[in-house]
């Protein structure tokens, strides 16, 4: 059985799943940047003391599941979201969804995801896919980061749905239910809400590891990494930063380009030129993140080894923090 579901490739998995599932219930206007912006996916956090894969715990995106929840919430679309402790029940629920004609979003771990090559298989549990059919023992899978659709056997799917460790998916399944049609006014409201949320979060939260302050925190840490960790470990910390920022699923520049695209698309709904001004700022900021990544690569490739190179890296991030502060303040203070 194969449901009538359109696979569209996206930069980021949760944006893609959200977009494709919303399109499926008739919200034609939705695009990946709109889902990302309305869901206030843009983010920054550097959690001190915690280590992920023996490196710093840094994230450029919000908590898994929140983009979908917020986007549907802001568009006034009811959702279904379920977690399971029993593998059998999780599979039964999925089969029931498919029998009803409902494609379902699933949170999965990447480590056992068979269609990923080994190089990309880490214990990362917040990947998202859509299951849109079943043929014999094979589930038909639309993975938004892939160019084409693929499939997983029921055992393979169970394994990734019940991956364990940090952010364990617990068989989590979700989908939007058909609600009221999305009007232009509803879309405008949702865009405002998303921008309000992200700009508040990035600049106004009084926590020194979150948002713009978090970027500054990372910058200041980097200055000490060469002395406190040694050039080799410091290099691998920077490699981790670059992977979080650029690796498949970010659209590049730590999601800043997707956000700039969102602001441009938002302008079509709310013709306020501040949005375009902010969009240009975020494009420049995304470019700067990439400049910083090039500097970082010089360090982890062992080409740059001196303290002044770490200082330069740190200065790049401080500059980015300042620019992001200005850009988000512009949005936060915006008169609609």
């Amino acid at each position, binding site marked *: 059985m194969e449901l009538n579901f359109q696979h569209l490739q996206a930069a980021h998995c949760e944006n893609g799943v959200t977009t494709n599932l919303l399109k499926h219930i008739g919200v034609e206007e939705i695009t990946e940047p709109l889902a990302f912006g309305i869901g206030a996916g843009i983010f920054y956090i550097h959690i001190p003391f915690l280590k992920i*894969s*023996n490196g710093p715990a840094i994230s450029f995106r919000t908590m898994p599941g929140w983009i979908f929840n917020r986007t549907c919430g802001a568009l006034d679309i009811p959702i279904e979201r379920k977690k399971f402790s029993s593998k059998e029940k999780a599979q039964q629920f999925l089969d029931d969804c498919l029998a009803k004609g409902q494609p379902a979003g699933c949170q999965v771990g990447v480590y056992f995801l068979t269609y990923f090559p080994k190089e990309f298989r880490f214990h990362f549990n917040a990947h998202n896919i859509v299951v849109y059919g079943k043929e014999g023992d094979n589930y038909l899978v639309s993975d938004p*980061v892939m*160019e084409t659709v693929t499939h997983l056997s029921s055992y393979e799917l169970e394994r990734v749905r019940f991956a364990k*460790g*940090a952010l364990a998916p617990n068989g989590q399944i979700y989908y939007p239910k058909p609600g009221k049609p999305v009007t232009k006014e509803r879309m405008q409201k949702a865009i405002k809400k998303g921008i309000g949320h992200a700009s508040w979060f990035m600049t106004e939260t009084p926590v020194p590891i979150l948002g713009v302050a978090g970027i500054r925190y990372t910058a200041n840490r980097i200055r000490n990494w060469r002395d406190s960790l040694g050039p080799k470990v410091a290099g691998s910390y920077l490699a981790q930063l*670059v992977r979080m920022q*650029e690796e498949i699923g970010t659209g590049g520049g730590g999601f800043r380009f997707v956000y700039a695209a969102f602001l441009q698309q938002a302008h079509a709904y709310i013709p306020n030129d501040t949005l375009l001004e902010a969009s240009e700022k975020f494009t420049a900021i995304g470019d700067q993140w990439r400049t910083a990544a090039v500097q*970082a690569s010089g360090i*982890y490739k062992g080409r740059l080894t001196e303290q002044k190179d770490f200082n330069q890296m740190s200065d790049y991030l401080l500059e980015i923090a300042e620019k992001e502060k200005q850009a988000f303040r512009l949005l936060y203070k915006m008169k609609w």
Partner: protein
Amino acid sequence: MKSKDIPQDPSALDKFTREVCYAVGEDGKYVTGLSRGWEVKADALGITWEEAEQRIKDAVQKIQSGEASPILFYMEVNLMDMPTIAAYTGFWQWTIKRHLKADVFKGLSDKKLQKYADVFSVSVDDLKAGRLIHGA
């Protein structure tokens, strides 16, 4: 980033897909383009794997010198840190730390070894005999 500057460097992505990038087109409007990869991040991924290989080598050495049990090797091969292996086996982290010692490992029951064997997809006999299989 301009759409004509979307990097097309060969990378491990070539094995399964190209990825979507957002970039500014000729007229200043955002467009999407597909990328084969970017050298900077391919290197970052490479470093991460080099490190993983080094950790496996270190583990082998520790096992051969009698410092550690084969569990350490399989942990590293499976890229598992303490919280991850604890979640997969159901053992407490401090229990696993004990099991990593060679002499504690010798006294482990088959039942406990079976849990590790299942997670690592090897047989209990392989574990017991200390066969270090680095396949997949």
